[in-house]
């Protein structure tokens, strides 16, 4: 990042390549659509470039990157919510989350065939469970799980206190446990191994 700050174009490309998958992955879980996640990830990289002169080497780059990502995702959600309010007569507010919750409920009620879920089905169940969490819980969960961030780093990224982060992660993990409970028999995952 220091080379990017010094206007090294090659370094910027390297930086994009290094973080693109991680960033798009987090964005995809936040906004749910791949194309939009990629657009937002590009917006994040653009902001990183524009703000390169303000980068402080003391700050961990990934923390800085995901702070920007969090702000971009939050702003997008706000814009979408405003647009949805304008078009309230044309669409249902819960159309995005309803199918996910419905499918989870259906699965939990035992209507799904009692068999081992294959890898794709398991991934889909997990994806639906994550989508059922609220945006902040999802973000905290992604940063903890896939970015291996500490509570302090998550707090910094999401601009909140460490105690609030601790509570947020606790609620996120508790909700996740409850949502995935139907697929774990007495603590065992449906496939019979813990992954």
């Amino acid at each position, binding site marked *: 990042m220091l080379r990017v700050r010094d206007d090294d174009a090659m370094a910027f490309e390297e930086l994009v390549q290094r973080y693109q998958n991680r960033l798009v992955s987090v964005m995809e879980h936040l906004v749910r659509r791949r194309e939009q996640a990629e657009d937002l990830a590009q917006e994040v990289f653009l902001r990183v470039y524009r703000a390169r002169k303000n980068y402080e080497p003391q700050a961990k780059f990934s923390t800085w990157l995901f702070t920007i990502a969090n702000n971009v995702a939050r702003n997008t959600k706000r814009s979408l919510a405003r647009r949805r309010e304008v078009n309230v007569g044309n669409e249902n507010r819960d159309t995005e989350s309803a199918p996910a919750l419905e499918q989870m409920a259906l699965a939990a009620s035992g209507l799904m065939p009692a068999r081992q879920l294959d890898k794709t089905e398991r991934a889909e169940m997990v994806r639906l469970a994550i989508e059922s969490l609220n945006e902040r819980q999802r973000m905290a969960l992604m940063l903890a799980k896939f970015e291996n961030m500490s509570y302090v780093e998550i707090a910094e990224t999401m601009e909140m206190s460490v105690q609030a982060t*601790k509570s947020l992660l606790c609620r996120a993990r508790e909700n996740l446990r409850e949502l995935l409970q139907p697929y774990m028999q007495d603590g065992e995952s449906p496939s019979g191994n813990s992954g």
Partner: protein
Amino acid sequence: MSDEHDTTLDEQLVAYLDGELPPDERSDFEDRLSNDSTLRKRLRQHQRAWDLLDSLPRTNVDDAFARSTVEMVALSAAEEIQQAEQATSRSSKIVWWITAEVLVVAALLGFLIVRVAVSGPNRQLAKDLPILEELDAYRFGEDIEFLRALEREGLFNVESEDDL
């Protein structure tokens, strides 16, 4: 009370799994864990749910993503440079015009000052006043030596004597 207790315990449990529990709380929690089968079961469920997240497919964006991102940033940088150049050009023009205006105003002021100072109609009169005051006396003078002799006699110092 019970809810608050459960929340604290849940937070401890999650922090324990995340390796974020302070050492003193950690050993107390482990003691409790060894004596509480319900808590152990809950911990296992949390851990399994956490591990299930690994079944999510890894995101892999194609090469076009990095390329188009760099192009987008390059375009943005070019626009920034263009805007900066336009701003510089605008400010240079403004500076040029201000300088030109200041020079014109300075030249006009200088001209007026010189004009007033050099060609003022009363300036010469004021300069010639001592001679005009003694013009009658000068008319009677036959030569310069005679006038100097009168000056030595104090004939031209009437005002000075009055002052004294």
